[in-house]
């Protein structure tokens, strides 16, 4: 089968690989019909995530058709069309039982700090991902969800990560009606966080980024205020003034480890890798939020350390909330939002690329070429 094949930092290609097999009674094999490239895939692509092995296939946002099921699978049958949450979750451990499907303890032997994630390095379980024609899906009774007949599959594929992650970012913000919410990052997750903030009753939503075409997009898509941090000397001071010198009620870090905007962070975090990525957005979020405010983090950081003003977290009494998204927990609510027309996730898809051209798709997304916001890969078997 054809699959994306990681060869090293900034080098990927489409290659023939062996078909995945059922390795556990709860497995299913899914024929992929659409797979996104996620902003967090770029951290792998840039070589920033430890234990990213040559030969692995990325991809944790995909939908497809069930081709084969293991002997213990009960809820799915061959031919079902499913969306597959990015988390590999058993549904039985103490964490899954309490709704923390992103923190499953039976899906990733390589690390205890993170649950299993499809196609996200061996630090997240060593699973081949969905940027391929076929993919092995463990715990098929737990994560995969049958796509409703009425749902566009472009919406469905964005329910596997992007929309739930943006929504959970807003949810973790504990937004009260009338709150001012600042979202750092106008990538796909930041866009969905801005859109979701209104669902929780935000009174004002502000998005900060430096990529003009993305700011323009989110301004129209999420009806929010947008500002380019390159046009101001100090984004924190700007936000203090913009909130009557009080600070934002809620700040969301939707950027993570590859943030721009600070030479010190960029050099130590991205170039020299002396910290687990550049924490500029988180730094600004902590310093922009009001005393007693909430900082919600969904941006991805590496497993070591980051330079952030932890003293200000203490002195301002900030609550930091963060987690990998529990996609399964959020799906019923988000499906309802799509059905009711409140949110149109597929509008963020800008590029549809054949899987064979995966190298170009990664480069376009990584280098932000051609006004790219969200690329999806279409395997050859799905184009027939």
């Amino acid at each position, binding site marked *: 089968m054809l699959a994306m094949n990681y060869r090293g930092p900034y080098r990927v290609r489409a290659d023939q690989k062996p078909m995945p097999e059922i390795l556990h009674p709860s497995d299913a094999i899914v024929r992929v019909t659409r797979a996104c490239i996620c902003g967090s895939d770029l951290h792998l692509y840039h070589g920033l995530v430890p234990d990213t092995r040559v030969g692995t296939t990325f991809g944790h946002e995909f939908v497809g058709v069930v081709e084969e099921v293991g002997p213990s699978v009960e809820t799915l049958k061959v031919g079902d069309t499913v969306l597959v949450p990015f988390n590999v979750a058993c549904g039985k451990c*103490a964490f899954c039982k*309490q*709704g923390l499907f992103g923190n499953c303890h039976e899906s990733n032997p390589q690390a205890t700090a993170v649950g*299993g994630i499809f196609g996200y390095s061996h630090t997240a*379980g060593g699973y081949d991902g969905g940027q391929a024609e076929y993919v092995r899906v463990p715990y098929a009774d737990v994560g995969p969800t049958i796509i409703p007949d009425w749902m566009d599959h472009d919406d469905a594929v964005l329910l596997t990560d992007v929309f739930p992650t943006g929504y959970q970012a807003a949810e973790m913000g504990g937004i009260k009606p009338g709150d001012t919410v600042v979202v750092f990052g106008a990538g796909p997750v930041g866009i969905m966080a801005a859109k979701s903030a209104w669902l929780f009753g935000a009174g004002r939503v502000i998005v900060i980024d430096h990529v003009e075409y993305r700011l323009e997009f989110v301004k129209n898509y999420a009806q929010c205020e947008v500002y380019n941090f390159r046009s101001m000397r100090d984004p924190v001071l700007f936000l203090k003034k913009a909130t009557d010198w009080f600070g934002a009620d809620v700040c969301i870090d939707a950027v993570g480890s590859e943030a721009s905007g600070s030479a010190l962070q960029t050099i130590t975090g991205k170039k020299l890798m002396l910290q687990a990525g550049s924490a500029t957005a988180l730094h600004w979020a902590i310093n922009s939020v009001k005393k007693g405010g909430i900082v919600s983090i969904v941006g991805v950081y590496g497993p070591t350390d980051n330079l952030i003003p932890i003293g200000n977290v203490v002195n301002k009494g900030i609550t930091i909330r963060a987690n990998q998204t529990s996609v399964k927990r959020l799906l019923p609510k988000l499906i309802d939002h799509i059905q009711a027309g409140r949110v149109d996730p597929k509008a963020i898809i800008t590029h549809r690329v054949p899987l064979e051209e995966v190298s*170009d798709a990664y*480069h376009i997304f990584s280098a932000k070429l051609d006004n790219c916001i969200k690329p999806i890969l279409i395997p050859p078997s799905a184009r027939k």
Partner: protein
Amino acid sequence: MENKANDYAHINGWGIDADPRNEPTYPLKNWTGDDHKRLNWERPPLQPVTVEVLHSNERPNLTAVFGTSSPPSGLSGVIRRYAFTFSESEYGHWLPLLIADRVNVVEGILDDLTRGHIPNIFAEKGWKADWQHNRAGLVKNVLVTAVIATTVVALLSRNKTNRKRIANKWRWLT
């Protein structure tokens, strides 16, 4: 709570202010109390181990399922095995893994060559997309790289010539 209160009857005021609604992880977590049972849930059936799978030393065993992609091999595999002797809290775990990843890139190129495949690194880096959407940037990058490479080569060869000239000049001394 009542049962627990009996256990702690010797501590005056134990649990008097406990409030089940004071759960900072809500709504992410539906608190059930299962955390206090630790790892003693009913485990799913265990996936047979058919390839080498490294596991964090912060857990006692493999998880019930795991990925089987790219098992450790070669020099990078040796480094990865070493890394897994350290906990996730130590640089001794993560830095060797990053080094192993870079070693693995060289192994990947050698593997390609031994299979008779010469990797098209320009295509793998998506230069076609650059040519389509960022032609000026691509040309600039190529020119800058060429200028730097030429300068380095020129400096190195000049140094070589200088060294020879100096050696010839002082040969009479030896």
